[in-house]
């Protein structure tokens, strides 16, 4: 009996890495496993947030997104169930952790937000001025409901943005240049705040791009931001960082924003995503 158990143990561990087993984990379990593995002041900075994660308000956003996703909407009265996020029409499990990626139908590298907008416009017939496409921020927006739902289907999955297409590599490499590019009144680049572990701005502990186990939490958007009382996206984080850096407004969905997101996702490669996350 003991022999059988010992024999079965490696099998169970091996199976533990498959998609179905990972998705059973709650986001706080994914985070706690990282905390047990590495020493990171960033991961452990808010005990209260970790305690609140089982009641993350982002779960309401996930539920609302799930309903919206399958509901026939827009001028074409179609649902998003035929939208291809890279793993086939309607396949959401593990799709987000493999974005940004190249899409042959547009010839572009797209992140979750731009791909979602593409589907809302082509499949559902919304225009860029219709509220579901135009309103990008806030837990009450269709955009954040849908993004949070789709991303939640990648919880616990390792970040694995494909780099097979030359355009995917070109965008990632340009994103790295953008990350280290100093400009503006304060001479800041992303590296100023995210180049070392354990540093603080005022009382906030900053994540390092060179520490994948903490960087995965940094890029795990959508996340409920306690200070904003709203679920926020990757695009919202990019905009906020450029604003704080005293550089210009990065345009939502621009190739510059997607290149940066390609680089930052690649920097967390192999580490499990925490979705939805809760941040300070």
């Amino acid at each position, binding site marked *: 009996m003991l022999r059988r158990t010992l024999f079965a143990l490696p099998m169970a561990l091996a199976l533990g890495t498959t998609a179905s087993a990972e998705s059973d984990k709650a986001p706080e379990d994914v985070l706690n496993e990282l905390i047990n593995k590495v020493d990171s002041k960033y991961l452990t900075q808010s005990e209260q947030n970790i305690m609140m994660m089982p009641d993350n308000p982002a779960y309401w956003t996930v539920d609302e997104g799930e309903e919206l996703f399958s509901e026939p909407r827009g001028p074409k009265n179609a649902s998003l169930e035929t939208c291809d996020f890279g793993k086939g029409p309607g396949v959401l499990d593990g799709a987000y952790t493999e974005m940004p990626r190249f899409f042959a139908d547009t010839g572009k590298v797209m992140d979750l937000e731009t791909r979602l907008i593409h589907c809302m416009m082509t499949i559902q017939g919304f225009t860029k001025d219709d509220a579901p496409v135009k309103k990008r921020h806030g837990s009450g927006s269709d955009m954040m409901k849908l993004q949070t739902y789709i991303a939640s289907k990648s919880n616990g999955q390792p970040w694995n943005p494909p780099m097979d297409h030359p355009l995917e590599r070109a965008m990632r490499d340009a994103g790295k240049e953008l990350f280290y590019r100093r400009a503006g009144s304060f001479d800041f680049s992303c590296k100023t705040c995210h180049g070392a572990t354990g540093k603080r701005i005022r009382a906030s502990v900053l994540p390092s791009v060179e520490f994948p186990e903490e960087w995965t939490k940094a890029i795990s958007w959508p996340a409920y931001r306690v200070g904003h009382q709203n679920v926020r996206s990757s695009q919202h984080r990019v905009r906020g960082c450029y*604003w704080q850096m005293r550089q210009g407004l990065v345009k939502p969905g621009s190739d510059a924003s997607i*290149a940066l997101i390609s680089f930052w996702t690649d920097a967390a490669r192999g580490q499990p995503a925490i979705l939805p996350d809760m941040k300070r």
Partner: protein
Amino acid sequence: MTKHKHILTHGLAAIALTLGTYSAAVSAEDYTKMTPKALAEHLIFKAGGFKLDEATQEGTTVTERQTQDGIQKACSALGSKTIDGDTAAKVNAMARKSIVKPDGGIKLGDWKKGQALARSGFGFRVGHRDDDHSKREPGGNCYACHQLDPNEIAFGTLGPSLAAYGKTRGTSEAMLNYAYEVIYNPHSYFPCTYMPRFGHNKVLTQEQISHVMAYLFDPESPVNQELKPQSW
């Protein structure tokens, strides 16, 4: 698909009109023929990455904000690497040349005004929300990165602690000169530091620098007081 394509083409055409020489026919495929650096510049300035025509508080546009000067270029080129001797010498020389001293010598201003400047993170932000300098004076945001008043607990650690700065260093002319130069252009001592060039970049005026220096050096300043016993 068609509508999306139309918007994209429309957007590119608008950019092409403003830039004149830029061709709307440039496809994303060409990205793979550029170096990463060239593509990054292209994404910022030619592919609609930033709202370049927005006005800034200093009277320019975002185009100028995004355009790098010599020190920004040299320090960015390091990427994740630590600084090498050649870059350090080059950046240091550029920084030394940039320093402008105040007429009538370096003097200490009002530490209370310096304290307000050290605490304020307001100023120079543009984009979805602009900082209106006519409504509020921009600050130096020293506390974002440095400890100053030992009794302030919300301080950053990107820079070294400056607690008891004047108390431990004194107020000799050499010391004041050094502190002024570090605030004006810190690359003159620390090439490729993360610290902003507060004087050179015109973030702080000469007068504001004198107030921040008073906050650092004045014996009355909270920076130079003892740590109080915690009441809790």
